[in-house]
């Protein structure tokens, strides 16, 4: 979808929420839901940061690390991609304490979702690095750069552009996964929805609002990433060899 359409959708959803807020059946729920949305946003942002860090580290480990590191990176990637996000959250929440490590639910949420998405991100970072033309490595070698210098100055800046669209999708996945933290006692947006629904049984107004709020958050991520992509691509397009 074009960025214009996305912006139209964003504005329309915000207007729709604002309009619904003027009606009694809806206005009742909005403050509580927005409170939940703040927690959802916090977990999303922190989770995304952790995911990016884990993805870059494990992709580099897998590509260039010594054997043990490569092995460790592979293990991490396979485990977190191969089991499901909820299982990982429950494991951190219920099982880890039995090994004497009790984390706050909030920490479990950020850690679980960040590690989960980071494993998927690792493959996207790896793919982007490998998509940089071989000639770039060779030119950097001919200039006698060290491997670290090549990566940092030549390869990663070019891989960065290729990484943005898949990361956009992963950030959306992470946002959506935050709903799972409602199952480990955190009062995020999904938890509030569930709680209000149980007490009032006004399913349609509550869930309409909740879906709209999630949509707004997703659109913000998508639009943000598109803008970032356009900016980054402009820098590189000027530089792309004809």
């Amino acid at each position, binding site marked *: *979808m074009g960025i214009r359409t996305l912006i139209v*959708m964003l504005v329309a959803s915000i207007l729709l929420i604002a309009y619904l807020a003027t009606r009694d059946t809806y206005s009742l729920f909005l403050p509580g839901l927005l409170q939940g949305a703040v927690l959802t946003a916090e977990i999303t942002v922190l989770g995304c940061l952790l995911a990016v860090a884990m993805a870059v580290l494990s992709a580099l480990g897998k590509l260039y690390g010594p054997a043990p590191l490569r092995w460790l990176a592979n293990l991490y990637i*396979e*485990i977190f*991609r*191969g*089991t*499901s*996000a*909820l*299982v*990982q959250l*429950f*494991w951190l929440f*219920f*099982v880890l304490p*039995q*090994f004497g490590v009790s984390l706050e639910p909030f920490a479990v949420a950020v850690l679980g979702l960040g590690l989960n998405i980071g494993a998927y991100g690792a493959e996207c970072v790896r793919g982007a690095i490998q998509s940089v033309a071989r000639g770039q490595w060779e030119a950097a070698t001919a200039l006698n750069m060290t491997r670290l210098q090549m990566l940092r100055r030549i390869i990663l800046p070019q891989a960065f552009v290729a990484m943005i669209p898949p990361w956009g999708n992963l950030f*959306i996945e992470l*946002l*959506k*996964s*935050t*709903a*799972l933290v*409602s*199952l480990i006692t955190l009062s995020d947006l*999904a938890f509030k*929805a*569930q709680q209000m*629904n149980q007490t009032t*049984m006004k*399913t*349609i107004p509550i*869930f309409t609002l*909740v*879906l709209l709020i*999630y*949509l707004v958050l*997703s*659109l913000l991520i*998508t639009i943000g990433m598109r803008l970032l992509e356009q900016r980054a691509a402009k820098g590189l397009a000027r530089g792309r060899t004809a």
Partner: protein
Amino acid sequence: MWDWAFTFEILPTLAKAAVISIEATLLGFVLAATLGLVLALTRIAVPWTAWPISVLVELIRSTPLLIQIFFLYFVFPSFGVTLDAFTAGVLALGIHYAAYCSEVYRAGFDNIPRGQWEASIALNLSPWTTFRDIIIPQAIPPIVPALGNYLVALFKETPLLSAIAVLELMQTAKIIGSETFRYTEPITMVGLFFLAMSLVSAAFIRAAERLLNRRPAR
């Protein structure tokens, strides 16, 4: 730390639950693949639906599956229809992944060069024949592995059905945990089961990909 006797004791219960998880996966996926195809074909056949469908798809894909599960489960009773949790869960899984599948089909059809349609028109093939003999065979190789990946993704989301108390693997593991106060074995076993299934399916998908891309030399 790890109690093997307990592990073996709960294994049959978990195995039974695994069957439920797999059932939900297969039913959900059949629904997703079919509904996705309907959406993709409608977009092509009835041009004015393209925009509303893409908004719908975007809407479904940008909101959490868990919310969609809750919504379906709780909204039907307000229309006087009661759905049991399993049905509501499968419906939600199916609809959520139909949005993803429809994009897979769309990409598959879009990938076919215009020249193929034009050549078919030049040969005076009917639209149906064109679709059956020219388009579908070329669209399938990229579609199948992508659908396969979504099948695995859908399978990994079945634990969400535990939120509406469907007795699939995760819910069963949690019940065992709350009854025995031992979470280590049941939850770890569930994780290992998913890991094993994912690795096996990934191997299958790679094999299918190789098979489909093995085209005769021209």
